[in-house]
Structures are given as C-alpha cells and as structure tokens.
C-alpha cells in the first residue's frame, strides 16, 4: 500500500518527464562516475605496484647508501657513497643469505652499427640473474671469471635488442659501444615487460659490476646491494644482521647516524601502497564534491516539480492523502532520481575505467565497497536534497493548492 502510494507515482512522474529526469540525473551520474574512475585507477595502480614488487621476491633486501652529514647539512638517502663490492662479499658470508649482487647503474647513450639508443646500463654480479629470477633468452649470462677479468661483455634486454639490432636474427657476438668502450654481446634477457611504475624493464644492458666501475664510472663504490635471503621468514633476522655487519665495517659510532639503509621490498611495497591510498581517497573526495553539486540539481528540479504539481498535491490531499504520504512520494522521487543516477554512474565509471586500461594501458580495478559507497552516497544526496522540496509539498495548504493555476 505504502509502496503503491509512493513508488508508483514517483516513477510515473519521473518517466513522464524523461528528458528532464535524465538531465537531472546527469549531475549524479558524472559525480559517481568520477569517483569510480579515480578509485579504479588508484586501486589498480596500487595493486599492480604491490604485485610487481612482490614478484621481485618477498625475500629481497636492498641496501642503499644513507644520508650523510656535511657541515651540518644532511643529504637525502643515497647521498653517501659508501657501499663497496667488499661489503657485498661480507654480507654473502652471513647466515641465511642466499645471494648478493652489487648494482652500479647509469643512464647513457649506446651505439651498435648505425643505431644508437639511450638506455640504462647496470653493472651487476652473475648472481643477479638468480636474485631477480631473470633468466637469459639466448646466449649466456656472464660468470665470475668475467667479473674478475673486468670483461667487456654485455647481456641485452629485449627492448635494447629491438632498438639496436632491428630485423637481425641474433645480436650475439656483435659489439655495442657504451661510453666509447666496445662491449661484446654474449646473451639476451627474457622479456619482463612494464614495471608497476610504467617503466620498461627490458630497456636495460647488464654488464659485470667490475667492468662498470673500472671502465664507466671510475668509482670505488656501488649504487646499491641486492640481497636475497634464503627464506622469506628469516628476512627480519637477515636484515638486522646486515645492519650490524655494516655498522662494524663502516666504523659507525653511535650516536652517529648510519651511512646506509637496509630495506626489504615488502616494506617498500607497503609504503608505496599506503601513499597511493591516501592519494586515492583525496581524489575520490574531490570527485564526491561534484556529487553534491549534482544533488543541488536534484533539489532544483524537485522544487520545480512541486510547484508544477501543486494542484495534483491539493487533489491528493483532498481525496485523503496524509501529509506523510505526499512527503514520501516526493522524497522517493528524489531518491529514485539520485540512486538511478548513481547506478548509471557506476556503469559509466566502469566503462571509463575499462577505457583507461585499454587506451592508456593503465591497470584499473573497481573495488566493490566503493561501488556500494558511491551508490549509497548518491542515495543519501537524494534524501538530503530531496527533503526540503518534499517537506514543502507536504506542508501545502490543500485549498490554496487546488486553487493554484
């Protein structure tokens, strides 16, 4: 009975003014769609960051130079250059450590034949292939004797292969000029694809770290040390063992700060994830503001509707409609407008998210709680902004309403 006296007249009225109902809903649709798209992009990014960091291995530990204090001014992390391959060798002796690789990285122009390409050159140890679980696709990875010999050998990522040797069956045996030094290609890496940050991980050349230090940077230090612990469960113990070892090796006397920093990738993933989430909530709140603007549109149309239907309201009262019933009818109309708008908004938002992932290759994911939240919020907007016009309708004097032209 209540259903019939409120829902039916409400939907009949909305269907009677289809164009107007649509336009009014548009505000809500845009608001909800904006929330859904932002959240989908944010969540997708966060999840794929976490996934790809996790795929690097939950037992991966990265040692980076810490900040240094020079004349009272502290540089940021990485400001100190104190890590050496010898540190790496010492860490490799610690219990629970499976493998260690120094990493020396630089970005430079490389040349092969008539082609040249700007890429990342990483000086690493033979263990790097194991640590990153990154096997060669053809040829071989360099070995310990290559490192000792400071050999001019290189393993190319797939992107570098296609850029430097387009149309050639195999680059193995060819020569690549890195900063004027010719390196012989001994292998190619299997493709990894994009990283979570959208970086092409295959755009890289790996060479022995000794060669990178001697022939390219000329430095005695490395950019970081990658450590793989034997078991993921031991990661905390291994981390503190590394810290204790490096404090001793670098002769750091408390209260002096450490000149290095030991982090495991899970912690980094979590930090990246929570930063992304803060951004996501922030953006979604901005989008939610447009929902409120949509709500004002609903209120506007409801006020027009009440005025237009003054005679109808008067008549309904004359035939026995209690004020409450009139209030419910108009409130239902406002809620129907905004929640139908909300549902359409979810669909539009989902399509938008799909478009983003197809066109921009950005991973998106729509979390269900947010869908419920967005539709619920839209309905709430309807109640809030529909109440005043509905109240106004219910408070009409039936005689004046019937006389209204």
């Amino acid at each position, binding site marked *: *009975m209540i259903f019939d006296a409120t829902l039916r007249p409400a939907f009949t009225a909305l269907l009677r003014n289809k164009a107007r109902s649509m336009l009014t809903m548009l505000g809500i649709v845009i608001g909800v769609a904006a929330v859904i798209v932002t959240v989908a992009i944010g969540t997708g990014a966060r999840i794929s960051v976490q996934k790809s960091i996790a795929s690097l291995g939950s037992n991966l530990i990265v040692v980076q130079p810490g900040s240094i204090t020079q004349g009272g001014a502290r540089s940021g992390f990485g400001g100190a250059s104190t890590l050496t391959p010898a540190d790496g060798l010492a860490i490799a002796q610690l219990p629970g450590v499976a493998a260690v690789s120094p990493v020396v990285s630089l970005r430079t122009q490389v040349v092969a034949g008539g082609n040249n390409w700007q890429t990342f050159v990483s000086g690493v140890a033979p263990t790097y292939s194991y640590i990153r679980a990154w096997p060669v696709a053809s040829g071989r990875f360099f070995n310990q004797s290559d490192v000792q010999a400071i050999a001019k050998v290189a393993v190319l990522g797939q992107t570098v292969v296609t850029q430097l040797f387009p149309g050639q069956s195999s680059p193995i045996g060819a020569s690549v000029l890195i900063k004027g030094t010719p390196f012989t290609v001994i292998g190619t890496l299997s493709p990894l694809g994009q990283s979570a940050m959208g970086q092409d991980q295959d755009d890289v050349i790996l060479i022995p770290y000794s060669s990178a230090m001697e022939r390219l940077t000329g430095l005695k230090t490395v950019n970081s040390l990658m450590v793989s612990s034997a078991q993921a469960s031991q990661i905390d113990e291994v981390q503190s063992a590394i810290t204790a070892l490096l404090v001793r090796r670098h002769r750091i006397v408390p209260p002096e700060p450490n000149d290095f920093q030991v982090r495991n990738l899970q912690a980094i993933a979590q930090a990246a994830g929570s930063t992304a989430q803060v951004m996501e909530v922030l953006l979604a709140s901005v989008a939610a503001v447009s929902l409120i603007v949509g709500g004002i549109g609903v209120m506007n149309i409801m006020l027009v509707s009440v005025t237009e239907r003054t005679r*109808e309201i008067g008549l309904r009262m004359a035939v026995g409609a209690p*004020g409450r019933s009139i209030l419910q009818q108009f409130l239902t109309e406002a809620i129907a407008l905004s929640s139908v708008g909300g549902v359409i908004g979810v669909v539009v938002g989902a399509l938008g998210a799909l478009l983003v992932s197809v066109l921009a290759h950005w991973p998106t994911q729509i979390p269900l709680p947010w869908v419920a939240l967005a539709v619920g919020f839209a309905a709430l907007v309807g109640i809030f902004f529909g109440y005043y016009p509905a109240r106004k309708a219910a408070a009409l004097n039936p005689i004046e309403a019937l006389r209204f032209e």
Partner: protein
Amino acid sequence: MEPVVDVRGLRKIYTLGQEEIGALAGVDLRIDAEEFVAVMGPSGSGKSTFMQIVGMLDSPSSGSYHFEGRDVSRLTADERAAIRSSRLGFVFQSYNLLARTTALENVELPLLYATHPVREREQIARAQMQLLGIEHLAKHFSNQMSGGQQQRVAIARALVNGPALILADEPTGALDTKTSDEVMALFGELNRERGITILLVTHEADIAAYAKRIVRFRDGLIISDRINDQQRAA
C-alpha cells in the same frame, strides 16, 4: 441517528494584511444522513468557505463542527485525512482530474490512500465506472474527454471509497444545460438509490431544484432553509 454534519456558530475570518474579511458570520446547520441539500447565495456569501470547512480542508475561526458525532476540532491532521479518504467525496467545478493520467487511474486515486489490496483496486474502480455507465472511458486520458465525461469520472472518483457525504462546489458550473441536467439526475439517483448524503453549491435555481432542501447564504449567514417540495427527478 447522528447527523452527518452538525455545525454551530461557525465563523471564518480571513486576514489579508490589516484587513479582516468575515467569510462566515455564525452558521448553524444540521444535515442528516440521506439528505440532498443545495446551497445557494450571491457571490462572496461564504458558500465555498463553508464547503471547505465541512470538507475538513480548512478549519473555522470559531464555532463547532461535528462530523458523524465526532468533534472535528479534536482530530489530528492524519485523522482528518483518513475521514476525507473513507467518508467524504469531493466534486469540483473544474473536475481536477490528474493530467496525463487515464480515467481509470483517476478513479483509483482515493483507493491509494485507503486500505485496499492492490489487486482489488482496479476492480473496485472499474465497478464504480460501470455503475455510472462510463466504463468505456477507462483508458481515456483527461484531455481526451468532454467536460461532462470528465465530471462523471470525477464523480466516480468521489464515490469510489463509498463515502457517506459528497461535497460538490458548483459541479455543473462549467457544463451546458443538457449535460448539467444529466449530472444532476445522476446525483439525484445516487441520493435516492444509494442513500448518499449530498451537499451541493449552485448559483442556478434549475440546478438547486434537484435537491430536497435548499439553503440560502448571504454575507456569511444562512438567510433561508426550506424543503424543496417540487424536487426534479430527471
């Protein structure tokens, strides 16, 4: 038996800014069940004001009103709405059918606010239209009917809840003589055959002649109240 309407010393004063307009200046009237009363009087004499108070759409400034023995001034707005829904039926000069709505849906309207199961509603409305011989208009929209047809639909709507009292303020005001006579004949029949009490406002003596009793208003007062011994039947 309780009178349907019993008003004593009914006054209504409208305030327009500084000015006070006395629309009703002390009306006493008792209408029993199965009466057919016509209210006449010059323009501005308070007829519509009286009908609105009797119809519980407005309240008097002073005086008492009992409907079927209940003191209306003691009822809440919802209780008055419930009485309008179940015991009263309104017929207006301008029909007041809902626009872009079929005749059947218009007749069903009062049932929305009464306790009728959904399935029964259409049946009841159709039966009512059949009684008035207008079932063929069921699917017509308001703007697809003549004035006389619209007023018949409005009368069906007023009757659909089985009211005790029909209030009709100039129901033939917008109709030609022939149609007016048909509508009045219908009122006479409802009164005679179904025992429905009718209170009707008109300016025309021809129309008032259908009633059993004629009450005349002037300046917010009843100046005459007599039995019509030449009641027209058709």
